[in-house]
Each structure stands twice: as structure tokens, then as C-alpha cells.
């Protein structure tokens, strides 16, 4: 009964229910679905033995045999953490939607459920075809979520986003088809192992990698493919944005995690160029975030900065870099979901979007200030929070691989502190401004969301060893494949 397929089915069935459940019951259905899949995931995790078998709880379906396309799902060491993040963040997003003032119709919950389904399917995909299909499929519910529930300029933003990612997806489709057509017909491309086994000649690898890189770089996003990001984020509904910022940006990184080992030689040859792009993103995003007035845009650019670091970490192809990237995905997902929710709390109460329009919230809402501060510490990467562990590994990997790139990437320590503290001080500190006086105390559900996040951040920061360990097994597995 334990199967990754069930993990995909649970949110799918419940999301269909949500569509018909009506406004009153859909939130309950969605909550049951997300919590249910979280618990089901934990059940899987508890019976998962990383050391003995690589792909556990496999689920296989022969989709179109004539073109050798099959759907295959399962859990392995590489997707373990990111699946955990998915369940948690969707839970939080549903909770955030249930907060008074964010309440939505059944369709909203249904679309979130669909996003959840596709994300689960994407992250648990066990062959390139499945990976590709759900890479694209995730776009659909997200598109409608933003188009129907976003801000005033949502149409342009979502169109831009759609065009960008579909463009990347097309490149990836072409690359996978090319690969598949060049494989021996007896190979069916049913698992990553088979994918890694058959290597094309280096000339083709360069082209294929370029295609994959652009696809993932747009999705992640990596400088200079990021311009859709801030526009989209500022138009998205905030609970959607939690999923968007915490999970969708991880899809690109996850792509690097999956595919980089296939292109070892290419990554090695192009390491300098790619990581320079990533590192430019780190500094560039941080500088923009520092001067940014709009809170959501600030989050978007800070995300660009962090994602650049994580992507650079995956490019090192070292044990440390991979482990760090996988853990940092989790850490950044939690932190950014928290930050988005912080922004949601602020914006929902006052209807103001800029940093300058808040002041002195800490005076009225010390609890909120404390939650915000802990989340911020994780985003800044202070020790004893989970953000530190990820950042530590990543910078370590980079410094070890290329000293100067690592040194520049480490600037995120300074810039991160600068823009985060700026945001915090401007909004939380100072004399309470007029529109803060009516700032309501946190409601119970908001309290819960923050508590869950803060506990996770601190726990993962204090006891990260086992979680980081998963990345190590993934690394071993992927690196086991011989070079050509």
C-alpha cells in the first residue's frame, strides 16, 4: 500500500472534492488533504531505509508505449527533503488561506490541491519524461491561481511568467526528445539510473545542457532570467505566493540536482561561467532587495539572491555542495514561506505594500516581531537556525571549489543582513505610525503558522545532521554512475 502514487492521489482526489465542496467546506477539505498527505509522507518516511534501496515506494505506469513514454514515481534520497518541504509549505499555505481576510472560494483550494498534486508528482518523478510532464503541468493550476485571484496587473505578469517558463519547457522537451531518439531502442528510460547510463557524445551534451540550463534557470530563476519573478510575485495572492516562492523556485534547483550529474563534463567545463551568473545573481538580487520599497518585491529579489547561491552549490558537483543545496532548499523554502506570510500579515492588516509605510509594529505586536525576527535570522543565515546550515555548506563548497567565487558568494552574509535588517527595522522599529495603531493582534491560526515555522527553523538548525545526511546518500547514488 505504501506507494508514492498515493501521495499524489491524496491531494488530487481532495482537490476535486474542493471544487465541488462549496465555500464553506472546501477549506476543511483542503486542510484534511494537506495534513493527510503530510502524515502519509511521514508514514512513508518512517518506513524508508535510505541505505538499502535507492528508489522506494515506486509507482509505474506505461503511458504511451509506442513512444517509450512512461510515468514513474518514487522516493529516493534526492527528493526526500524537497517532498517534505512541499507537504509542509502546502499545509501552511492552506492554513494561511483560511486566515480571516484571505478566505477564498472552493476553486482556490481546488487549484492549490492541484498544484500540490503536480508538485508531488514532479518531485517524486523517477524518469525524465515524468519530470518534464509535471514540470510543465505545475504551471496550469498556478496560472489560474494567479489569473483569478491575483493583483490588478496580474494578467501581464502571469503572461510573462507563462511565456518564460513555457519557453524553457519547450527547450527541455526538445532536449529530452533528442536524447530519447538517440538512445538504443531497447532502453526504455524508465528510471534515472537508465538515464544516467546512456551518455551522448560531448558535442551533443553541450547543446542538451544548454537547453536544460535555460529551462531550469528560468524556473529557478537565475540571473539574468529573473525579470518575470518580481512582477509575478507582486501580483500573486499571498498564500499562492508561499507556494510559488517556496516550492516553484525549487523546481529549477531540483532540476539541477537531477540533471547535473548527467552532464558532469559540461558542468565542469562551464563551471566558471555558470557560477559567475549565479554569483552575480546573489549580489545583484541583494542590492536590489536592499533598495527595494515594495515588500513583496524585496522578497522576490532576496529569493533571487539565495537561489543563486543554491544553484551555484549544485554546480560544484561535490558532496558538500549537493548536500548543502538540498538542505538549503528546505531551509530557504521555510524561510521564504515565513517571510511571505509576514508580508501577508502586514499587508492584510493595513493594505500598504511599501516598507516605508510601516513603523513601530514591535511596540504593539511583540509576538509578531519575535516570529518575524526568528524567520529573518534564518533568512540571514545565523547559526542555530536552519538557514545557517544550508549557507554554511554552500559557501564551503564554493570556497573549496573556486576560492574567489566562494568569496563573492559569501557577500550574501553582508548584503543579506543589510536588506533584511532594513526591512525589519523600518517596519518593526521606530515610533508606531498612524496606520499601525489599528494593527490587530495575531489571530490563532496566524499564531499557529508562525509557531510551526519557528519550531521547524530552530529544530532543523539545532539538529540538522540526519536531514543533511539524506543529501549524502543521494550524492553517492548519483555519483556512482561511471563517466564516459
Amino acid at each position, binding site marked *: 500500500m505504501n506507494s508514492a502514487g498515493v501521495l499524489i492521489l491524496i491531494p488530487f482526489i481532495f482537490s476535486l472534492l474542493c471544487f465541488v465542496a462549496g465555500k464553506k467546506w472546501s477549506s476543511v477539505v483542503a486542510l484534511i488533504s494537506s495534513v493527510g498527505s503530510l502524515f502519509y509522507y511521514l508514514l512513508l518516511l518512517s518506513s524508508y531505509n535510505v541505505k538499502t534501496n535507492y528508489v522506494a515506494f515506486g509507482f509505474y505506469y506505461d503511458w504511451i508505449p509506442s513512444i517509450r513514454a512512461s510515468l514513474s514515481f518514487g522516493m529516493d534520497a534526492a527528493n526526500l527533503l524537497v517532498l517534505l518541504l512541499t507537504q509542509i509549505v502546502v499545509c501552511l499555505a492552506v492554513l494561511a488561506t483560511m486566515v480571516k481576510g484571505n478566505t477564498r472560494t472552493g476553486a482556490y483550494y481546488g487549484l492549490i490541491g492541484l498544484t500540490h498534486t503536480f508538485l508531488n508528482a514532479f518531485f517524486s518523478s523517477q524518469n525524465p519524461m515524468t519530470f518534464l510532464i509535471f514540470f510543465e503541468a505545475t504551471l496550469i493550476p498556478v496560472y489560474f491561481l494567479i489569473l483569478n485571484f491575483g493583483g490588478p496587473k496580474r494578467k501581464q505578469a502571469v503572461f510573462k511568467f507563462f511565456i518564460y517558463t513555457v519557453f524553457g519547457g519547450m527547450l527541455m522537451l526538445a532536449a529530452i526528445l533528442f536524447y530519447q531518439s538517440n538512445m538504443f531502442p531497447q532502453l526504455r528510460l524508465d528510471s534515472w539510473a537508465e538515464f544516467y547510463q546512456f551518455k551522448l557524445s560531448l558535442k551533443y551534451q553541450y547543446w542538451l545542457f544548454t537547453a536544460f540550463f535555460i529551462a531550469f534557470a528560468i524556473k529557478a530563476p537565475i540571473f539574468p532570467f529573473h525579470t518575470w519573478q518580481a512582477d509575478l510575485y507582486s501580483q500573486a495572492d499571498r498564500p499562492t505566493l508561499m507556494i510559488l516562492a517556496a516550492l516553484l523556485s525549487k523546481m529549477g534547483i531540483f532540476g539541477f540536482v537531477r540533471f547535473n550529474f548527467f552532464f558532469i563534463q559540461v558542468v565542469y567545463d562551464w563551471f566558471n561561467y555558470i557560477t559567475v551568473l549565479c554569483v552575480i545573481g546573489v549580489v545583484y538580487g541583494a542590492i536590489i532587495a536592499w533598495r527595494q520599497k515594495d515588500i513583496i518585491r524585496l522578497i522576490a529579489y532576496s529569493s533571487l539572491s539565495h537561489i543563486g547561491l543554491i544553484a551555484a552549490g549544485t554546480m560544484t558537483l561535490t558532496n558538500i555542495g549537493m548536500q548543502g543545496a538540498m538542505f538549503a532548499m528546505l531551509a530557504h523554502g521555510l524561510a521564504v514561506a515565513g517571510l511571505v506570510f509576514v508580508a501577508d500579515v502586514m499587508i492584510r492588516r493595513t493594505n500598504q505594500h511599501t516598507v516605508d509605510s510601516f513603523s513601530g509594529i514591535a511596540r504593539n505586536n511583540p509576538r509578531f516581531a519575535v516570529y518575524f525576527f526568528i524567520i529573518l535570522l534564518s533568512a540571514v543565515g545565523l547559526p542555530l537556525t536552519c538557514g545557517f546550515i544550508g549557507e554554511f555548506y554552500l559557501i564551503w563548497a564554493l570556497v573549496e571549489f573556486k576560492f574567489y567565487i566562494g568569496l563573492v558568494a559569501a557577500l550574501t552574509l553582508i548584503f543579506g543582513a543589510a536588506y533584511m535588517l532594513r526591512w525589519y527595522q523600518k517596519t518593526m*522599529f521606530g515610533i508606531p505610525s498612524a496606520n499601525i495603531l489599528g494593527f490587530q493582534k495575531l489571530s490563532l491560526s496566524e499564531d499557529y503558522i508562525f509557531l510551526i515555522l519557528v519550531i521547524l527553523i530552530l529544530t532543523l538548525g*539545532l539538529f540538522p545532521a540526519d536531514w543533511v545526511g539524506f543529501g549524502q546518500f543521494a550524492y553517492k547514488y548519483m555519483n556512482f554512475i561511471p563517466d564516459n
Partner: protein
Amino acid sequence: MDATLILHLILWPPLIGFLINGLFGNSIPKWAVSIIACLGPLTSFTGTVLAYKFLSGPAHDIPLYTWFIVEGSAKINFGFYIDHLAIIMLFVVTGVGSLIHAYSTGYMHDDKGYSRFMAYMNLFLFSMLLLVLGSNLVVLFAGWEGVGLCSFLLIGFWFENKEYNKAAAKAFIMNRIGDLGFLVAIFLIINKFGGIEFTSIHETLMEEGQLNDPQIALICLMLFLGVCGKSAQIPLFTWLPDAMAGPTPVSALIHAATMVTAGIYLIARMYFLFDYSPLSLNVIAITGCITALIAATIALKQNDIKKILAYSTVSQLGYMAVALGVGSYISAVFHLMTHAFFKALLFLGAGSVIHGLHGEQDISKMGGLKSKMKWTYAVMLIGTLAIVGCPPFAGFFSKDEILASVYSKNFWYFLVLAFASVFTAWYMFRLLFATFHGQFRGSEVKFEKVHESSYSMVIPLIVLALFSMFGGFAGLPELTGGEHNLYKFLVQTIAQTRFKVSHLFEYSLWGITIVALISIAYLTYRKYATSSKVVFESGNSLVSKIILNKFYLDELYLILFVNPLKKTGSWIINQFEYGVIDRLIRIPDTLIESSSIALKNLQSGKLSWYLLSTAVSILLIVLVFIYR
């Protein structure tokens, strides 16, 4: 006794205090907050005493659990390490910490954020203990960042004031610049030595270390960058004077006694590494010299009582850095200890003055307070005598030791430090006389309101004063025939040979010190124990302008780093991001769009146009078929 038990006894009480006060501080009475807050450091202090008494042997390594691990590279324990150096630091941290906590209960009692303040202080103490006790660089780094964070929180404690917030952010960010170096140094160390525990680094270094290894030099310099941030060395010292925005106990505990000395502690902790890199030691010594001199010079012209002390702290940290730089680590630790005593004393005394004057910090508006605040005057006098190095106060011994050791290595460093000492004496006596002697330079009404502080404030002052008087006897110089107990204690951890100077030099040094002190005291008394404000106004000469404006360092950083970054940021947001990047990335998009517009015009719906195009295309097709 079991070392683990003692460790738990030392480490956790402040954290528990922080949690209780932080979570429930608003709902329990103030006296309970005070007791809980003071109990934490006191328990830690007790633990320290127990550790001193009962722990034998060179060191105790207590790994609690594996924090994180990378196969093949390094295993990072959440582990702790108690040795002699740590115990000395623990004494300073928990001892001075307890006193300052007690003082704070009086000083901050009427503040509305009282419980928050005490919680922060406890958290700071916990982080500091983490820093001191960490058995590896990563745990040390955790504490290092933790104290930086608490420093940020406490500088900006009165967060409704924007200036204070700015100072807090400045402190945090400048510290982070140093932390970058520290972090990179950690990675380099893992890379080089394959381990991160102090003991394993030491062992590996003993086995395969080479003098003047460039990699080690790089590691040392990176570590020193961290030290520059935390211990306020040039070029990163400008945050410390601004950090005086925090409440005075904070300045005393964090920005004088403990946190800023963390850098000194780090180098003393890693002394074996620095021994392998004379180059970086030289860099440290030179930086220390410049810092000591510049900070002392700036302090000459300051009128804010806390700022004077802040620059004095920077200057003294420079002393310690020079001591480290010439390789006499123990002298540095010695001075660190005595400095913690007398600087905390001075700050708390200054706090008492400020408290008595209801928030006045400008010494040009003080004067004649001797009669009103007897205890404060007494302890301030002791503190001043200690810092200027008057025998037999604490500062004399440690300073003398540093000067002597520096002289034995490099005459020029000695000369600079001697100058700095003269300046120190000048500004400290100026502070003392301007505050307590002469006539009160404010209004009569104000003078009437001046009062001596409460006992909870005075008693810690007296205790600290006693330490400042007798703390120096822990390390008597050879010349007096006494024992250098501190050396004997620390040498078990820090393997360092004692320097040698001639007796003649020591005698003459003492003599010159005393003569100089008396003459400076006389001069400053003549000048500053007055009722006129004029002497406090700075002249218009270029030199005094430069000094008054702190050598324009802040402005320099503003021009060199902050403003360009700000401008770049605005430029990127306003122009580059959408003007260049977006357009660049949308080239395919634009191409498709423009061609679709062109094609759209073809579909005009006009029959004649369709017919024409049909004809033309037939023409083309036929042509192609014919002339293929």
C-alpha cells in the same frame, strides 16, 4: 566533579533565564524578572568557580552531539571545551556579567522594556558562553554571531529612535563583514587540516605545519578580518562608538568587557596557528598600533562621556592586538581581564553619572559632581587610575607587561603605544576632572536634582572597583619578586615563553610612567576643573577638525562603499533591471511579437489584398517550378 555536569551548570542557566523572561516576562512581576535574570549569570559564575576548583588536567572536551557531518571532510560537533584559557574568560564573562546584571536591575528598573532587556542580556551571556566554551570553530562562530545579534538587539534597545536603529544595523553589518572572513577562514581550515576541533587542528599543525605557509597566512588574515569586525580594529572600528546608543550596562558588558574582546580571545585560542605565520602577526601588530593611536587621538576631543570611553575601549583593544601581534598572548589575555574590570567599572560609573544627571552625557555640561556622588566619584577615580596605568592598580601591571613585551620585540610599536598611553592618560583625566571637579556647568535647578544612584547600582561598582584595584596582582612582574599566577595558569594552555627585558628598562618605564601621569594629571586639572565651557569647544584648526570628525572615516566609507552601492541599487531598479536585462532577455519575445504584428497586418480582411497575394504566390511557385 564531572566536567559535563559543570558545563551544563555554566552554559544553560542564562538561556533558561532568557526563555523564562522572554516568554513570560510581561506577565510576571518585576522582582521575579530581576531574580531570574540575575540567577542565570550567578549560577554560571558558580559553575565557573567549580570548574576552576575541581577540573584538573589540561583540558576537557565535551562533545554533546553531532551537529552536522560531511563524510570525508569533517564532522562538526555541538561540542564544548573547557581549558585554562576558557576558565579565565569564563571568570571575566560570568563575573563581570553577574555584576552588570545586578547593576542593570537598578539602572533599567523604570524602563518599560525591562523584562525584554534582561532577557536580551541573558541571551547575550549565553551566546558569549557558547563562544568561549565552543570546542570547535563552528560552535565558536555560532556564539560569535549570537553575540553580534544580541549586540544588535541591545544597541537598538530603544527601538523607537531611528538613530539608535541605524547604529544597531551598522554594528551588525560591520560585524558581518568580519564574519565573512571568519567563515571563509573556517572553510580554509577544514580544507587544510581536515578538522575543525581546536585540538585536532593543533595536532595536525604540530605534525605537518610549515612556517610561512601561505595558506596558513591566508587563514590567519581571514580570521583577523573577523577579529577586526568584532574587536573593533581599524578599518572596521567605527561601529563601536556608535554602539554607545544602547543603554549603559550594554556598553559596559558588551562593548567594553566581553563581546569586543572575543576577537582577542579567538586569536589567543588559535595562537598555535598564528605562530606559524609571522606575516599575519605583523599585520595584527601594525593594525593594533594604528588603532590604538587613532582611537586615543579621537578620544581627546570627544565631549560625550560614553563616546570617550568607547574610543578608549577601541584604543585598549588595539593594545591587546599589539600584544597578540608580538606573540605575547598571555599579556593580551591579562590586559583583556583587567580591562574588563576597569572599563566595565568606568562605563557603569559613567552610567551612574548619566543616571544621576537624568540622561545628560555631555561632559561640558557637568562638573563638580564630586560632592553629590561620592561613591561614584571614588570608583571612577579608581577606574581612571587603573586605565591610565598608575601603580599599583590593575591596569598598571597588564599595560606594563604589554609595553615591556612589545619593547622586547619592536621598538617602533613600543613608541606608538607609549604615545597612545600618554593620550589615554590625558583624555581619562580630562573626563574625570571635567565631570567631578570644578563647578557645575549646567543650571542650578539641574544640579539640585543630581543624586547618588541606588544600592543595586553602587554595590556592583564597588565590587568592580575592588577588582580594578587588586586584579593586577594576578600577574606581578618579575621585578617585584612576586608570582605571575596568571602566566603559570595559562601557560598550561598557551605554550608561550616569557619575554625578557632588562631591569633597567623596567625601572625607567615605571619611573617615566609615574612622572608622566603626575604631570598630565596636573595639567588636565588646571585646564578642565573649571567652570567655563570654553575649554571644551574644539578649535578651528585643521588638526582638531580632523580629530573631531573621527578622521572622516565614516564619511570615507560612505563615499567609498555605501553611496556607490546605494546609487547602483537605485540605478539598477530604475533603469538597468527593466531597461537592459528585461529587454535583453525578451529579445526572442520581441522578435515574435513584432513579426506577429507584421503578419497580423497581412490578415487585413481585404479581398483584393488576398487576391493579390494569391497571384503573387502563384507567380513565385511557378517561378520556382520552372527555374528549379
